[in-house]
């Protein structure tokens, strides 16, 4: 209900704003049913941006359309693969994900929206990948999956689908505050021989073309993202790595403390946008 009134209020706003490119005005309603907030007021902790926008609003009409119906979204094939994995027993304990969590719908609703999340017992901030691997190792007695391995990325997509349409809402205070600050520092640090920070491209220059690319705000509410460019689902850290590499820098690794902190910070910049994954991007 709250979501609905918000979206329609935004739609009215967009209309009254007048002549904006058609593709940017359109609304994202998946399967004619799940309303996605793709533009909303920036969270209070953001200093230089008033309105946050999903990467979807920056894509061409053709790419946008692919995300409007699950039959057209190539990322959904991988969600189906993960559905099978979900029920498969693996490891020394004779368990599957389903043994502890029931169906994905029962067990995973709302989960994507609040990750990365502090784990009190372990005393650490966990991304979804870390939590999945903790379950595999410690509850199933199964081997860890690699950060970018197919089953891992696909599983994050299956989990994301259970939160589609819910607002991203990661906590940034309490035990994670220090990590959040570190992530913020990384976001504003210039790296590489091109000497560019995340903010240089995604805060100062979103909506501008850089060569053929229409720069977005670099939000991660749509991850994992199916990229037309490599025809598979891509993890958040893999995207970070690509962007850092493109500054002619030595990148950080997937799962590194730097990228975990950066993920928390970037996720928090999207607080209020809907969970969208798996999204379709170019």
């Amino acid at each position, binding site marked *: 209900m709250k979501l609905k009134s918000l979206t329609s209020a935004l739609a009215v706003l967009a209309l009254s704003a007048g002549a904006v490119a058609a593709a940017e005005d359109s609304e994202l309603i998946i399967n004619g049913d799940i309303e996605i907030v793709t533009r909303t007021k920036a969270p209070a902790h953001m200093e230089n941006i008033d309105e946050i926008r999903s990467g979807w609003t920056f894509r061409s009409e053709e790419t946008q359309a692919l995300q409007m119906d699950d039959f057209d979204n190539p990322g959904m094939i991988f969600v189906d693969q993960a559905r099978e994995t979900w029920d498969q027993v693996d490891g020394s304990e004779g368990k599957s994900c389903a043994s502890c969590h029931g169906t994905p719908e029962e067990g995973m609703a709302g989960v994507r929206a609040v990750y990365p999340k502090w784990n009190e017992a372990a005393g650490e901030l966990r991304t979804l990948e870390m939590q999945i691997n903790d379950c595999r190792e410690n509850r199933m007695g199964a081997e860890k999956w690699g950060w970018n391995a197919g089953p891992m990325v696909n599983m994050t997509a299956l989990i994301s689908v259970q939160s589609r349409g819910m607002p991203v809402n990661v906590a940034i205070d309490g035990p994670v505050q220090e990590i959040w600050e570190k992530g913020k520092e990384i976001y504003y640090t210039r*790296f590489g021989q091109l*000497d560019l920070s995340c903010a*240089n491209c995604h805060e100062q220059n979103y909506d501008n*073309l*850089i060569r053929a690319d229409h720069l977005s705000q670099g939000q991660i509410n749509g991850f994992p993202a199916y990229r037309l460019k490599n025809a598979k689902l891509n993890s958040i850290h893999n995207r970070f*790595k690509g962007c*850092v590499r493109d500054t*002619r*820098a030595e990148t950080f690794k997937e799962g590194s403390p730097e990228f975990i902190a950066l993920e928390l910070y970037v996720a928090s910049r999207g607080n209020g946008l809907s969970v969208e994954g798996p999204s379709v991007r170019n």
Partner: protein
Amino acid sequence: MKRAILSAACLFAGASLVSAAEVAPLDVKFDDYGAVEQSLTGVAGDPANGRKVMGTKSLGNCVSCHAISEMAEDVPFHGEVGPVLDGVADRWNEAELRGIVANSKKTFEGTVMPAYYQTTGYNRPGDAYTGKAAKSDPMPPLLSAQQIEDVVAYLMTLKEE
């Protein structure tokens, strides 16, 4: 002819061996406004090559951020991050343009435009676009001294008045 021999020599010798007349990246003298009076090579720039450097992805790739109307026909996809460069020679003289290309931060504090003739002082410098650490510090500049002179010569042709 002389020019061709020189650049061939540069190619083979690599960035570490600098020809006698060449100003090394660390020795470039910027004035208080960021301009560089002295040519980096003493050899006149070749505007045709400068044009190529600016439009080629693996070289200057300046068009990723700047549009240039004159290039629109043969070089696709000009960016919008920096100002359109049409008429840029009416706004800046040669020394100023050399300074902007060599290290634009001396002219525009905090700009997003990369420095093309700088070899050290970076965070986590990488080995080109491999994502791996740079092989040396100082590292080779993004453009050679002569490529910068060529780019400046091309920019000097962008006049509207």
